Structure formats: C-alpha cells, structure tokens
C-alpha cells in the first residue's frame, strides 16, 4: 500500500504476546492514521465504563499516511488512550523522530493492551519488535532511560528514538506524560499514568531503512519544499528562526501570558524570556526533528545566573510561561532548569505549573502552610522549593501525593476559598500555558475538547476555507463560537496525519495534495475536512459514554474570572459563557442538553451506528 506499511503492531502485555495486524486501505482512508485510527481502536476495544487504569484500556501510539515521508513535521506521533485526568478520551502528540522510525520499522501504529506483571519496554527494529526487561530502568528519569536503552542496544544519538515515562508515570501521577528524543512530549491527559498502570516503561525504535513507497515522490518533494517555505514565512518566521519563546513579550502585551496563577497580567520581565534574546545568550545547539528545517527547538546551556552551566532542552513557550511568570519567577536560567526537571520526572508542564501556582497562592494567603507542604516554603518564584515540590509530586511523597491527582482534585480536597483559586475545567483537564481570558476561543476549546487538551481553536492557514469570521473580533462571543465551531477538524486532520502544527500550520489544502501524492487516493478537500469533523464527533460520542455531561464543560471560577489588570481587564468572559456555548452547540449540530451529536449530524458524518 502506498503511504502506509499496511500493518499495526498489537501488543498484549498481560500475556507478553506480540502480533501483526493488517491495516487495510479502506480503514486508513477513513481515518488517515494517528488520532483518527487511535479513536477507532479506542471505541472498538475499550469499554467506556472501564477506569483508565484498567488493564483492558489500550495505549495507541501511531503515525499517519505522511509519516516518514519528506514532508516536514511528519516524524511526530499521536497517542490515543483513555486518559487519567478526565477518565475520558485522550489524544496528545509529540514531535521528534519516532513517527518516521516507527514506519521504517514496518508499522503505522502500535496498540498496547493488558498489563505486564513486571516492567518492560518495547523495542522495534529492522526485523520486527520485542518486549524487553525494564527492571533496571525503574526510577530512571526520561533522559536517563533514553540513554540507558540506547547503550544497552548499542545505538547512538539519532540512530534510535526512545520515548519513555519518568518516575511520575511509574507512580501513576495523573498528569504524567510520555517523553523522548531529548524532551519532546506527548504530555496531556495523563497518558504516562496509563503506561505506568501497564508497567510499560518505554518505546524504542531503531532508525531502520525506509521501505515506504509513495505514489508521486517528486510531488512529495515539491510539497515538502512548499511546506518549509510556509513555515519559514508564517508569523514573520519568528517560530521558525527563534522558537516559540519568541512570543513571550507579545503574549504579555496581549494579556494572555499567565502570571501568578491569573492574579495579574503584568510581567515586566517578559523581554528576558524572549527567544531572540535567550538563544544567543544561552549556548544553543541545533537539534532538529525528523525531516524539518525549522529551528523551533534546540538544546541549551545556561550561561548566567544561579543555574549557569545547566544543560538541557530549550523550553517551549509553554514551559517558559509555566516556570517563569506563572510561578512569579524572573530568571530564564531557572526556567530552563525547572522545565528539564519536569520533563525528566515525566510530567506535563501545564498541569504541573497550575498545581505549583495554586500552591503558591495558597501559601501566600495562608490556606497551605509550611507544615502542610513537608517543610517547603512555597513563596512566589521560589525555584528550589518548586524543584523539591515537583519531585515530591512525581514520587508521590507527602503532600505531593495529593497534588499528584491534579489541581482540580487537590483544590476540591482542600476546599474552602482555596478551591476557587485553581485553574481547570469541569472535566478535570486544564488549559495549555496561557491566560485564556485573553484567548476566548481557546478557553471555549479547552472546555469542550474531547482530547483532554487542545482540539481545534481556529489555528488555520486558510481562514476563508474554514469560514472564520472576517474581520474577527476575538472578544466577540458570536465570533468566538463561530470560529471554534467552523474550524472544527482543522487541527484534527493534522493529528490524524500526525504532522507537527509548527510546520503545517493547518494548511489543509497542501495536506490534501500531500495525502494524494503519498497514496494516490485522489481524495477531495471536502472528504478530508469531513474526516476531521468525524473524528471530533467520535471522540465526543465516546466521552459521553464515559459519563461526560455538558455541565462539566465549564471553566473553573478562577479560569474564567475577570482580569484585574492588563489589556483585558474590562473583558470578562463569564457573562457570555452560556450564550456562547448555546451557539457553539447549535453550530456543531449537538444536543444542548445531552451533548450528543444530533441525528442529522451523525448521518452527515456517516457514524449513526457508532452513536448507539
């Protein structure tokens, strides 16, 4: 089959069994791979009533039809499982090399089921796959695990891609993730905890020789170039040349940089975190993902301040935001250190920073005292206390054990006023590293998302194609509901193809050309857009069966509170919330009371059977 290996690797950890399953062309065409294919497996194999930690839960990790091709951004992987934070569907992606190596090793995806009696890791290579003993890896952080596996198997640097869970995943911290290729992360909705429950420490794929075939290889080359040019020019090339930290000053100016747990929107030190300043100042080193010329991500050595000489990955914008402004911390070097500590322990930086910020606010206001926190003085910006708290969480020590359940659970357990200070949604997930009071579309997206993280939020190249309000007022509730509903599927297509957003920028038309050059399907733009919407609706149906109700699709009081300062202080979202949701539901063709897609929506997407 063109564009595909035609195979999925099935793994039963309970029995220690591996087998190949044929992946037919009709199925692939229906889902494109990645999140779509994972959703199919989730719906077929996992009873929605089961708990996420049940051995019968599956862990899907896959690439798509463009994976391993020359199109940049296609070394990415998508993970689908029943997630630990929402106990509903999870879909989360990581960049790096694994997606390409996976396909070169002969598989489009891996589906893991069962739970192993002893710790294992999965090794893929030119000749197939095997489960190996991971007892010596237990307790190792994600970088140490990567190094240890490469050493054991005799691979160097990018000759192998390893994604693993850290101590947090082993201890089933509810926001543990999967980390690999030096700090890339599929981090959302507690997928690392699922691997912990299965005693699967890591996935390791050797860089085998590609046997993939594409129908029109020269066209793929042409589109690869076009995609690179698009990435180079998007937003003036800021991300391409300087990474996502380039947006920190602009985020503060627009009031969507999270500062001290949403207590303020003012962060005078914003320029210190600007990628254009930090990259030349700190010693940076190229570390590209498979097939991508972007300088979105590098390795970094801190050159000044108390953490001088600390070496690790360069934080992404969300990590700068998490370990800088969100915890009231002003030293970029310390932010590099904390980012890497969090990655190595194997936890999602978003949820971890909402937890730490909430603890700091509780400490300032006296709701949590030093004795409650195992002796840690959680004052704003206290770097070493934060480091210690992260370790306590990852290892479930002391109060860390409570915090390891996530910020919603911890806040509700503490109760009183403090319960109102936490940032989360009613489903138990939390926003990415922004203050969404300045990004209404994304607050709506976070609340309604069926992946446990970002699902849609109007990040599209062709605004007319996706019927974006034009001109768009990002604080107009009607525009917000329209933008979110109309762009439904755009991001999902990238997650089915498993193409990095920072190369594709959801350029759907180019993606359709690429699918056809890879597979020869002659698929239409409309059909691909429908696949995106279909997968979103399938995830919704699954979550409703898991117990999702529309009343849970709400931001917490602090999350949707009114900004006290900054550019958005006169723009409260809460008064508009219900009306915005009404309109969003209407545009989506969903029942406002039950949350279920209406019969005509199901029919249009061809999924009537699956809704039962």
């Amino acid at each position: 089959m063109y564009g595909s290996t035609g195979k999925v690797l099935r793994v039963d950890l309970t029995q220690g069994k591996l087998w190949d399953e044929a992946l037919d062309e009709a199925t692939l065409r229906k889902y494109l791979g990645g999140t779509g294919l994972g959703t199919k497996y989730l719906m077929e194999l996992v009873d929605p009533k089961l708990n996420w930690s049940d051995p019968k839960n599956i862990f899907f990790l896959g690439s798509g039809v463009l994976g391993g091709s020359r199109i940049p951004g296609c070394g990415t992987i998508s993970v689908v499982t029943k997630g630990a934070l929402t106990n509903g569907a999870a879909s989360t992606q990581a960049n790096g090399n694994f997606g390409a190596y996976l396909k070169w090793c002969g598989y489009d995806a891996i589906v893991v089921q069962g739970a192993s009696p002893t710790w294992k890791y999965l090794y893929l290579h030119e000749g197939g796959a095997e489960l190996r003993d991971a007892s010596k890896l237990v307790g190792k952080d994600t970088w140490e695990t990567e190094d240890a596996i490469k050493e054991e198997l005799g691979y160097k640097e990018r000759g192998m891609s390893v994604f693993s869970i850290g101590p947090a995943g082993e201890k089933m911290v509810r926001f543990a993730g999967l980390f690999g290729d030096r700090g890339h992360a599929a981090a959302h909705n507690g997928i690392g905890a699922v691997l912990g429950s299965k005693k699967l420490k890591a996935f390791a794929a050797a860089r085998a020789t590609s046997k993939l075939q594409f129908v029109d290889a020269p066209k793929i080359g042409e589109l690869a170039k076009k995609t690179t040019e698009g990435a180079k020019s998007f937003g003036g090339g800021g991300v391409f040349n300087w990474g996502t930290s380039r947006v920190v000053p602009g985020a503060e100016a627009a009031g969507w940089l999270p500062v001290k747990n949403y207590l303020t929107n003012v962060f005078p030190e914003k320029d210190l975190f600007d990628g254009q300043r930090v990259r030349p100042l700190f010693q940076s080193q190229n570390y590209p993902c498979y097939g991508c010329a972007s300088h979105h991500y590098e390795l970094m050595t801190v050159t000044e301040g108390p953490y001088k000489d600390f070496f690790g990955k360069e934080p992404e914008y969300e990590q700068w935001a998490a370990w800088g402004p969100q915890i009231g911390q002003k030293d970029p070097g310390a932010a590099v250190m904390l980012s890497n500590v969090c990655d190595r322990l194997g936890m999602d930086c978003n949820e971890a920073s909402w937890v730490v910020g909430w603890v700091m606010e509780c400490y300032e206001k006296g709701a949590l005292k030093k004795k409650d926190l195992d002796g840690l003085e959680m004052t704003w910006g206290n770097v070493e206390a934060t480091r210690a708290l992260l370790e306590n969480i990852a290892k479930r020590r002391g109060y860390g054990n409570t915090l390891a359940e996530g910020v919603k659970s911890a806040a509700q357990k503490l109760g009183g006023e403090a319960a109102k200070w936490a940032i989360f949604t009613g489903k138990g997930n939390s926003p990415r590293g922004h203050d969404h009071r300045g990004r209404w579309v994304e607050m709506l997206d976070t609340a309604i998302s069926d992946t446990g993280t970002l699902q849609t939020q109007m990040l599209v190249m062709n605004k007319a194609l996706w019927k974006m309000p034009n001109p768009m007022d990002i604080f107009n509730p009607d525009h917000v509901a329209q933008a979110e509903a109309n762009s439904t599927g755009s991001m999902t297509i990238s997650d089915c193809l498993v193409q990095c957003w920072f190369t594709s920028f959801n350029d759907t038309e180019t993606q359709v050309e690429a699918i056809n050059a890879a597979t020869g399907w002659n698929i239409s733009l409309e059909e691909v857009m429908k696949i995106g919407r279909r997968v979103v609706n399938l995830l919704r149906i699954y979550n409703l069966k898991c117990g999702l109700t529309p009343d849970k699709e709400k931001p917490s009081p602090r999350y949707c509170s009114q900004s006290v300062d900054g550019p958005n202080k006169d723009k409260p979202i809460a008064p508009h919330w219900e009306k915005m949701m009404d309109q969003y539901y209407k545009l989506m063709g969903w029942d406002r009371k039950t949350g279920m897609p209406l019969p005509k929506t199901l029919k249009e997407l061809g999924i009537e059977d699956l809704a039962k």
Partner: protein
Amino acid sequence: MKIDPELCIACEACLPYCPMGVISMKDDMAIIDEDECVDCSVCLKSKVCPVDAFVFEPAPWPRSLRNTFSDPRTEHKETRIAGRGTEEMKTNDVTGRFKRGWVGLGCEFGRPGIGTRFHDLDKVSQVLAKHGVIFEPKNPVTFLMENKKTGKLKEEVLNEKVLSAIIECMFPIGKFKEIMAALKEVAKKVDTVFSVEVINRAEPNGSYPLLKLLDEMGIPHYINGKQNVGLGRPLANV
C-alpha cells in the same frame, strides 16, 4: 564530505552552514561540490540536518590533508597540533625560534569562503627557497615539501584544497627587502588571498628594526593584537 542521496529531503537547512559555500541544490537534492569541499565537517558538526544525511569517511592520502588542515579538531600527526598544525610565531616567548638579527615570516593562505589549494603555497615556497630561507621544521606544510632547499611541494598534494594553511620560515634581516619584493611579485600568480606576517626580536632599547625597513618600502603594517606576551616565564633564551 558527502550527502547520502537516499536520506536528503532537500530542506536546505544546511546551505548557510558551509564555510566554503559549496553545498547547493540540484534536482531537488542538496549536493556538495566535492572538488571544492575542504572536509572541514562544519555541516556535520552543526547537527542542522534533520535526517542525518551527512556522511564523513576519512579519505586516503592526499585528500586526507583537507580534513587535517580544515577541521580545527583534527590533529596533524607530524606536529601533534590541531587546525593549521603550527604553534605560529606568536608564541616566540616560549619557542624562541627567532633571535636578534633574524626575521620570522609567515604567509597565511586562504580564508572561509575561498580556501586555498597547495599549488598556491607551492608557488610562494619555491620563491622563498630561492632566497635561502629556512623553513620552520615544526610546520605541517614543511612536511609536505619534497625538498626543503627548493621549497617544492610534493606533486600529489598540489591540487588539494584546504580552508587555510601557513608557510613559515626565517632568514637574516639583511634579506628582508629582497624577500618582500619577491613576495609582491609572486602574489600576482596566486589564486587566493594570503596575508604576510613578520616578527623580529626588539632591540635592547625597545625599537624594532623591521618597522624602519617596512616604512622605507612603503608597506603599511600594524602590530598584531594576537601577539601572546607575558604568558609566564620565558622558556627560550632569545
């Protein structure tokens, strides 16, 4: 250096990293002009290639010279010094190569962007030899001479290209003017850039005899800031 055509994805990320500017795009693929490539490994070491397509296999003699001279990490086996393989004259405090009444002279050939081939060095070294200079024994270019009296480089190395290489020699100060004149003449036949550096020991009163000679010849000059002075106890009796 080679690019594996099976791996290259034509992303062009490597193009700005080549100091010689010899990576280009052809037929939707990055290619290296191997004749112009000096094997400096900057492309490989930059780690900019997202598919690890650069392949470097140590070349046999005489192409091996390219990497030895152009990659600052590679040591010359003759002198056990990396890069261009010589201590250079600036460490005279330690080496004591140049005594009063003598002039040390170096010709630095090539720079990033242009490089040099050994036939350029050969032209100059032969001219210098005619004037009876003594070539510096601890310099890898001297090791490439088939005859230190004629300054002739070995035939097989002449077409090899490197990022930069230095001829070093010394002679009595009385020959200075004729040698400088000869260099000016031969420079017209050299296909790259080269700079000339000279050194001499200061007189007890602190004056430099060379300054006077350079002024007499109308040659503009400046004292090089790279002069290493005062780095510990002088080891050499100069």
